[in-house]
């Protein structure tokens, strides 16, 4: 006890020089000082804060925001425009919109007048070309801009580039069809100019339907709740996480304990071998599994030789596909848990094992009564970490079974990834993918809290009751 006190004081030499009363007096302002934010401290913290904000908080916030939208690759991410298109008019017609309004919105008049000429002149159109337009077509009307373009092409001084002729033609066309209005106000004034009789309600409806960008919605969550496929994926995910997690922890623990009892060198060699799945690049690792388990692969050939069922084990049956999914992910996870458990085992005072051997304890009794009780914290850590990491992992599944056969090995994270970011047909549903990711985050948080309570985390981190 005296030794401890001396050591503590020794670490604060000023405390010994000061009388006790003074020390108490000083303590007050020190406490007040603590609330002051030191600029140097902030500077030191700034990089960490920036990194946390950029790479942790911002993605989480964006995912939440995206999940309440109908954002897809068709709506774009940064916002849309207002476009009255023939398809929209056809849909509005089917929905019974006023035919007069529809006619006005879809109409096009092309007439050569002074206003058009003036606008073209101001835009820098070649004066000789404009002169020809004025001479040939002033006061004339055309059926549509394609016909007008055909007439403009015949003029001797027309610009060389087609695009410039077409640009000139637009100054004489009065139509909003297929024009992209970047702002709502722009769209409103254009619609009003071409269909002055449009009522406010109809205008609102047309604007709403003509908007090409994303809108706020809770539809993603409704869809997820009602789609039958959702529950299939939830079950797949629960099965995948539970089985792979058990594999990670049990195999990791077994290898750690087995190598712990081996001579140090041999143990290290085995530890290094078990690290291979983790240090092998993931694509190469997946290819190795393919070579091993496909119908032309190593296992199938051996199985055929000895008369066992030989097929593409990776995709051939639901059972073998799951075994491969669990093993590909399990070995990667087991190598991490093995390192952690091996480290933790080395911290157990070896005297306890010696003492137990003197008392005649078997290996199993040593594991059961000495090792496992002292491994609670690493097991808790591995369980928590592996659960969260498995929940969000998909890359090995994507590269091996790709969620098949059918969607039997499709897990939530893989489905979210495919929905939002990788789809053969190119229709990326960012909103739906984000909603799926958000649900994953919420489940992850919920499970973390559950684990902490289950393993009595507070007891593990509380101050030791005995001082060494």
């Amino acid at each position, binding site marked *: 006890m005296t030794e401890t006190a001396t050591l503590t004081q020794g670490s604060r030499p000023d405390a010994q020089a000061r009388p006790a009363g003074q020390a108490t007096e000083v303590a007050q302002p020190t406490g007040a000082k603590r609330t002051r934010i030191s600029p140097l401290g902030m500077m030191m913290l700034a990089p960490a804060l920036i990194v946390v904000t950029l790479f942790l908080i911002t993605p989480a916030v964006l995912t939440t925001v995206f999940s309440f939208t109908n954002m897809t690759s068709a709506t774009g991410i940064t916002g849309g425009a207002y476009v009255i298109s023939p398809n929209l008019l056809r849909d509005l017609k089917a929905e019974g919109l006023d035919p007069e309004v529809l006619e006005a919105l879809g109409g096009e008049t092309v007439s050569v007048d002074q206003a058009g000429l003036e606008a073209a002149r101001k835009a820098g159109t070649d004066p000789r070309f404009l002169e020809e337009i004025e001479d040939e077509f002033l006061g004339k009307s055309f059926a549509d801009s394609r016909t007008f373009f055909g007439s403009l092409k015949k003029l001797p001084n027309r610009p060389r580039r087609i695009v410039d002729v077409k640009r000139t033609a637009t100054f004489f066309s009065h139509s909003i069809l297929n024009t992209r209005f970047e702002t709502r106000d722009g769209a409103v004034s254009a619609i009003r100019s071409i269909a002055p009789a449009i009522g406010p309600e109809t205008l609102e409806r047309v604007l709403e339907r003509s908007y090409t960008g994303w809108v706020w919605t809770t539809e993603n969550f409704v*869809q997820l709740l009602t789609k039958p496929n959702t529950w299939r994926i939830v079950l797949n995910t629960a099965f995948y996480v539970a089985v792979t997690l058990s594999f990670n922890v049990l195999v990791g623990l077994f290898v750690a304990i087995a190598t712990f009892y081996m001579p140090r060198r041999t143990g290290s060699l085995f530890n290094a071998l078990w690290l291979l799945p983790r240090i092998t690049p993931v694509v190469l690792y997946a290819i190795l599994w393919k070579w091993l388990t496909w119908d032309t692969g190593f296992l199938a050939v051996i199985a055929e030789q000895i008369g066992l069922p030989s097929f593409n084990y990776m995709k051939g049956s639901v059972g073998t596909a799951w075994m491969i999914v669990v093993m590909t992910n399990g070995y990667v996870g087991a190598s991490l848990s093995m390192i952690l458990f091996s480290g933790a085992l080395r911290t157990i005072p070896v005297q306890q094992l010696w003492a137990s051997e003197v008392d005649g304890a078997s290996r199993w009794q040593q594991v059961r009564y000495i090792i496992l009780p002292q491994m609670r914290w690493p097991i808790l850590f591995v369980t928590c970490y592996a659960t969260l990491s498995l929940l969000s992992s998909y890359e090995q599944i994507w590269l091996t079974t790709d969620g098949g056969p059918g969607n039997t090995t499709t897990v939530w994270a893989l489905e979210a990834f495919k929905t939002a970011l990788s*789809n053969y047909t190119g229709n990326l549903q960012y909103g739906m993918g984000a909603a799926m990711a958000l649900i994953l985050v919420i489940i992850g948080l919920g499970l973390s809290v559950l684990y902490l309570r289950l393993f009595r985390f507070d007891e593990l981190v509380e101050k030791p009751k005995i001082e060494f």
Partner: protein
Amino acid sequence: MTILKRTTAAALAVALLSGTALSAQAKDYTVKVWAGGTNENSMYRVKAIEMAADFLQRQAALRGEELNITVENQTWSGWDDFKQAVTLANESGTAPNILVTGHEDIGPWAQAGVIRPIEDYVDFDSWPLNQIYENLIEVASYDGQIWGIPQDAESRVFFFAREGLSAIGYSEDQIEALPERIREGEYTLYNMIDDVKKMQDKGLVAKGQGFAPRVKNGPDYWQFYQSFGGEMVDPESGKLIFDKKALTGMYQFFVDAVAKGVVPKTYLGTEWDDWHRNVAAGKYGAWHGGTWHYAQWTKQFKLDDFFGKTVFSLIPAGNADGRANSITHPLVYLLSASGSDDEAAISAELIGIASEPRINALHAVASGHLAIGTEEAKVPFYANDRWSREATEELLPYANSIPNNADFGVYWTAMYKGLEASWTGASPVADAVKTAEAEVKAALGDGIIIR
């Protein structure tokens, strides 16, 4: 020299010099081209743009302008990564000037403002665009505007091994008549299953290798939907159609093929190269692919005497409701909305030149694709190529395309998931159809007609 003369001479010199300065003012452009689904046989998709740049520079030089165009190209062998790259590049404003992609991307990309309508930049009434097949121009159009210029055309083909057919009792004449019988709907997919089963039973084809369909997702599978009477889009309302009966027929067909033992239930997901190797080695009884696969088999996989070993046709009908058909899936040159208007104009000119019959014929013959225009079909280099000629005549007139509809991707994904689920036995056919129906209903609501 009088003062007047001197002034005049000086003015003239200034005018001349300024003229020289103007003409010497070089215009530099860097045109970026990205192409999806492109392998070494189809590199003319991007090389044609490089050839066009050279051509345009020469034209400019003759006009006294100095035009320097640098073409930077990037190709992707698959589609997923390419499409993801395009959508992300567009959001960051770094999309390339020219995109080469499947026409089905026009719908979503037009809505999202990724692309600009090419009709604003080119003249479809002038050479060479005026000779492009009208139906291909339609395929490149969406919502009242022409967005792209067809880059190639193709058909999807059903192949039979002649040797296999002979061995199960087909005479030479019967083999020659098979494409016609298929076209007329007399020979169905189920007849095909029976025939390839016979080939397997005779030991000509290994068990499970009688029928080898496409190994991965692709427009090809819509052909089987059509074989059972399915329609993808309602021409009147423009809405997508989910035909439960046709989809059931299609899923059931693959389940039956598995039950007959002519295709493994784990077939989907086979590696492309394994499939190509087996085709070239004559290991399959019947298979289907694209016209462009011919180039891969004969060049990369060393298949010789293609016409002596195979007979090709439309995809047979599945039942009396359906029809023999083929889907053409033209790739299109699109103008991205990124970059300046001037760059878009130059890019459009390059696309126009690249669509010249002789230039496009290089791509068609090199990659086994079909001509995009009437005049290209007359280019001797193309017309003398037996595969190009026969495939154009036998298949293209009966080919239709998948719809340009921004929602079609959702439907497509659901269709393929259901096919995979029933094929592998993960769910019964009826459940797979119900799941696909629920998926599209939830995602598209009134945007799809269920019948």
